[in-house]
Structures are given as structure tokens and as C-alpha cells.
């Protein structure tokens, strides 16, 4: 148990300046309260400034190790976490699924226990099974950061999207948010729905009907249920924020949908974007396929936030690493008391 006043006295700062929440892991957005989300976004701000410094490397987490265990292909999220760790002065310990013992038949738990035995201070993990991060967190003492689990959640993506929206529009409350694409298989969509509806945003989902199943209507955290719309023109009408998802081509064969038909019906074009509110934001989690889900003119246009999202991803991940492993942890204070 931490005693805020004792700790504040040791640091010689006022108790009200001590982090008011305890984050042991970051597994999902769903259980987070609005004030916790706001706090996380506020803590990302100083790290946004650091991206503009001539010297971007800190020594804050010097001597700490971040285990990066990706059991699913990823380049940008992995690079973002690795860079976030390195800019804080921490070392990254990389585990690549292709090169790991998983292919030799080792279980997930044995693999992460082996990694844990090398004493990292936290583990960032991505896995193709929903719930994998949660499962690992239940078996390890160290903090686990979910970098995407199956079709469940991708919490850091939702946080970086929220930071981008807040920077551009000033706040998160009550916007009309339209998400276009394969919602069914998208953990980005789920995390975004949880986060933005928590702030009273009205969510509209749009895509081929088999990708927008009815059960998604109940995901909203505010009174307003999630709306499902088949026609993209209708979905865009009055939108303040448009989130375009990547068409996962590997999934196109499931129910057969020709690519050119997707482009014709759902691609975000400059003409369709005029149906949204003037100045509506366009977000895309990447990797973006120009000419498929998004027209290049929109991707490069003034309403596109795609590159800010990438930069903000670094800031959000630095903030989370700092929050999760930037202090001694409760066990140290317990040990101190017992001496």
C-alpha cells in the first residue's frame, strides 16, 4: 500500500502532485474511467514536447528493460514501442514470433515465463488471440502492456487517436464519430468505441453488413447506442471525426467481396468527405492502402491526421512506460517498512 503523503514528503513535493491512479497493467480501454483516460492523455503532453527537442533521449528509465513480445507481424507498433523505450533511456528486449520457440511447439505461457526470467521491468505484447495479454498479466508479476490482442483491443491506438482528436478539436466530448471498414475484425475499432463513447461521442459504424454485426450496438459506454449504417454517404452525414480502417485483404475471402466493389461503395473520397462537417478529421491507424479504403487526395489533405497519429503514438507509449515502470513499485516500499 502506498502512502501518498509519505511518498510526497520523500520526493519533497505536495501530495496533490502525486499520480492519483495506480496503473498495474494496460490491457484494455473498456475498464478505464474518463478521468483515468484524461489523466493518461495529459501525461502524454510533456512527451509530445520531447519529440520536438533537438536531443530526444532521456535517461529517466536508464537501467530498465522493456520486453517486447510480438507473436503477430507488426512493424509500426513495434518500432513505436521500441523507440519509446529507447527515448526514455530503457533497453528493449525483442522477441520475434517467427524466430521464437513458439514454432517449435512451446506454449505462450512458457515463452513469456522464459522472457520474464530475464527480468524485464514490463512486457509489451501483441498476439493474434483475444485475451492473450490478459492471460499473461494474470501469470506475471510485472506490468503487461497490450499492443493488440486478436480482435479484442488495441488500447494504445485508441489513446493516440484520442490525443490527436483533443489536439485538433480541443476536447473529446460529444463528437459524431464515423468508423468505416471491417469493424468485426478490428481491435482498433473496439478500443476507439469504448474510449470515445465514454466521453459521450455518438458512434456510427459503416461497412459491408457482414463486417458490422448487430452485437456491436451494445459496445457504447454512454446512453446513446452505436448506430450501424450500410450506406457510406449516410454514415458520413454530419460526422466530426472519420476513422478509416485498413481493409484486411487476408480477410476478404471470408464472405466473398470483390475489392473494386469495396472501393466503389466505401472508399473515403474527397466528394464523400464533403458530406461530413466542414473540417472533419480523418484518422487511419495504418498501414494505409491508398486507392483502396482511402483516396490519396484525402490521405494527403488538410483534414488527414495520419502522421500526427504516428508522432502521438510515441508520446502516448512513452507516457505509459513511464507510468508503469518509472517508480519503485509497491514491493519496494513494503520491503523498506519491514527493515
Amino acid at each position, binding site marked *: 500500500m*502506498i502512502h*501518498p503523503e*509519505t*511518498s*510526497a*514528503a*520523500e*520526493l519533497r*513535493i505536495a501530495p496533490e*502532485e*502525486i*499520480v*492519483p491512479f495506480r496503473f498495474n497493467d494496460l490491457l484494455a480501454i473498456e475498464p478505464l474511467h474518463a478521468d483515468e483516460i484524461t489523466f493518461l492523455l495529459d*501525461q502524454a*503532453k*510533456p512527451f509530445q*514536447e*520531447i519529440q520536438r*527537442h*533537438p*536531443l*530526444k*533521449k*532521456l*535517461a*529517466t528509465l536508464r*537501467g530498465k528493460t522493456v520486453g517486447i513480445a510480438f507473436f503477430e507481424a507488426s512493424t509500426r507498433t513495434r518500432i513505436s514501442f521500441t523507440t519509446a523505450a529507447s527515448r526514455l533511456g530503457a533497453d528493449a528486449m525483442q522477441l520475434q514470433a517467427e524466430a521464437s520457440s513458439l514454432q517449435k511447439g512451446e506454449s505462450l505461457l512458457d515463452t513469456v515465463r522464459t522472457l520474464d526470467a530475464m527480468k524485464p521491468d514490463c512486457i509489451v505484447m501483441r498476439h493474434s488471440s483475444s485475451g492473450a495479454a490478459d492471460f499473461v498479466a494474470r501469470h506475471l508479476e510485472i506490468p503487461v502492456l497490450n499492443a493488440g490482442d486478436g480482435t479484442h483491443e488495441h488500447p494504445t491506438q485508441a489513446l493516440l487517436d484520442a490525443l490527436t482528436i483533443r489536439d485538433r478539436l480541443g476536447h473529446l466530448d460529444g463528437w459524431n464519430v464515423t468508423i468505416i471498414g471491417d469493424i468485426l475484425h478490428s481491435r482498433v475499432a473496439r478500443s476507439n468505441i469504448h474510449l470515445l463513447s465514454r466521453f459521450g461521442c455518438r458512434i456510427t459504424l459503416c461497412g459491408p453488413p457482414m463486417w458490422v454485426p448487430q452485437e456491436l450496438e451494445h459496445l457504447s459506454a454512454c446512453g446513446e447506442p452505436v448506430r450501424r449504417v450500410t450506406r457510406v454517404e449516410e454514415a458520413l452525414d454530419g460526422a466530426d471525426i472519420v476513422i478509416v480502417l485498413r481493409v484486411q485483404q487476408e480477410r476478404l475471402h471470408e464472405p466473398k467481396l470483390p475489392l473494386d466493389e469495396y472501393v466503389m461503395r466505401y472508399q473515403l473520397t474527397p466528394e464523400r468527405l464533403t458530406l461530413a462537417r466542414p473540417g472533419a478529421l480523418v484518422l487511419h491507424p495504418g498501414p494505409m492502402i491508398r486507392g483502396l479504403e482511402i483516396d490519396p487526395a484525402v490521405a494527403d489533405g488538410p483534414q488527414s491526421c495520419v502522421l500526427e497519429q504516428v508522432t502521438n503514438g510515441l508520446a502516448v507509449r512513452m*507516457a505509459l512506460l*513511464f*507510468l508503469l515502470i*518509472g*517508480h*519503485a*513499485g*509497491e514491493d*519496494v*516500499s513494503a520491503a523498506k517498512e519491514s527493515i
Partner: protein
Amino acid sequence: MRVVEKTQLMSATEIDRTLQRVAHEIVERSGGTAHLALIGVRRRGVPLAQRIALAMRAIDGVDVPVGTLDITLYRDDLSMVAAQPVLQSSEIPFSVDGKDLILVDDVLYTGRTIRAAMNGLFDLGRPRRVRLCVLIDRGHRELPIEAAFIGRTVQTSDMEIIEVRLQEVDQEERVMLVERVP
């Protein structure tokens, strides 16, 4: 642990008079205000830096730029305790390259805060010179750091705490000597 107030070290008037004097000293020993910039260390160094800048304006008629620095990410004691300070933004809206910087803080004690602040500053560029200005120097240094401009030097014991209370942060204006009672 309790804390009890022992004595008042400075009143509002004394704080103001001291800052006026310090502002004069800085201008005098810098040969004017050219290239000068003030960096307030969060939290109470910030209003002090702003007040010194205001006093310098009255002396020289020039607006000396003021920045603010949060040193949390540069602290050396974060891994020692279970709590974590809330990060604040640093706002330094000018280039520090070639500047004659005055770091401003309320109390100089172990010197560790100033060590952290210097690390933060040097991530931003290469100032020509950095000097330190504090309202109170209470001794007990753990690092080879000294202030160039000092409001008042106070002899203290380890059990004592200097509390600088400023209108902008604490809604009152005075400097108190308090003591920890086990």
C-alpha cells in the same frame, strides 16, 4: 510525522524587496539584459521568475523572456520511492542556444533539483552561460552546485523544512521555517 511552524523568515514585503534587489543584481552583473532569459523551475520557481522579469522591465525597459521547466523526468530519486509525481509541461518558447540563462527556484537545498534542471536545459540546446538564482539558500548541499544570486541565506538543520508560500500557488505570501516532529 507532524510538522510544526517555527518562525516566519520573510513577509510579503520582504519577498518583494528581495526580488527587486535580485533583479538589480542580475542586470548589473550581466551588463544589461541582452541575451538574458529566465527559466523558472516548477512549481514555485515559475512565479518567482515572472516577478523578476517584471522587475527587470522596470529597470531596463526590456521584456526578458521567461520559460518554465518541469524536472520530473530528470529526477534521480524516482526509482527510490513508490509514488510518482504528476508530469507537467515545460514551456520554453525560445531557443536556449547562445542565451545567458538564469535558472530560478525557491529553495536551494541538496542541489539535486538544479542538477536535474541543468540536464533538462541541455537537452534543449547549448546556452552560453547558466547561472542560478534562489530566494532561499538553506545549505546541506549534496552536489557541487552554488547559486550566483541569493535572496537570503538561512542556517537550517536536517529536521527543518523551508516553506515558500506564494500567492500564485498557495494563495498566501510568506516564507516559513517549519520543523518535522517524529
